[in-house]
């Protein structure tokens, strides 16, 4: 974990040092790296028969976790919205 976080902070440092230059190619590099990584993830999944045979179950789990997480964050966002409206005085 430390290596990964350290690398990211090195990146922030480098980015800050180069702040007077526009590094527009970085976002393209990021996109390509993400493609490479997802390809690797797919390969690992494809070569693992245990994961392949459970793909439907894993999908169901994903739906459940996604909806639970979203429900939680929507509830708190709604609560904060109520507070914001009250502070402004009456509904807008």
């Amino acid at each position: 974990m430390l290596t990964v976080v350290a690398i990211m902070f090195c990146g922030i440092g480098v980015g800050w040092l180069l702040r007077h230059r526009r590094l527009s190619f970085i976002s393209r590099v990021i996109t390509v790296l993400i493609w490479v990584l997802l390809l690797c993830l797919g390969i690992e999944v494809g070569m693992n028969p245990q994961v392949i045979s459970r793909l439907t179950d894993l999908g169901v789990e994903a739906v459940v976790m996604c909806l639970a997480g979203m429900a939680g964050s929507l509830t708190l966002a709604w609560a904060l919205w109520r507070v914001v409206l009250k502070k402004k005085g009456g509904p807008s």
Partner: protein
Amino acid sequence: MKGSMTIVAFFVLGIICGLFHLIPDGINIGRWSYIALCALLFCVGISVGNDTQMLRRFRSLDPLLLLLPLMTIIGTLAGVTVVSLAMPHRSLTECLAVGSGFAYYSLSSIFITQYKGPELGTVALLANILREVITLLGAPLMVRWFGRLAPISAGGATTMDTTLPIITRSCGQDYVILSLFHGFCVDFSVPFLVTFFCTL
């Protein structure tokens, strides 16, 4: 939407390559993806450090609204904690790691694959892609049911890029800066929270 479709296409292409053994023997996929992950984080760091305008823009925000990223993080983790009780085969930390993706599917699934294997990585990928898709499709309804902060919270880490246009349309132009701020904070929390829950 087009971006996430491309991602899914690469993932599916990978599965096909893996299934039919199209990858030559002797290539250590895990090692290569770790190197690519480090390179990715370095680039993400550069793009964060390079953008000095971003921090300046956030000063105009209402202090109360600065709490929104925290609400998103706490709410998501609470929701996932509740549902983990119904999943006896998954530990709480595994569920929290998946939840901590906050729709940032690429980074979170890669991290989780590194630490917990491709099975949980796949769950993380699907769960977080779904979160982005639901936000893109359901933003107007969320505004109606849960108020104007809801789509921003639902969008998680994506509210500074992929879901920003739909948020602008359904919440209004006034919420663009908040959406950027929210995305920035949640985005930044993903690598920390995911690795934290994976190594617990």
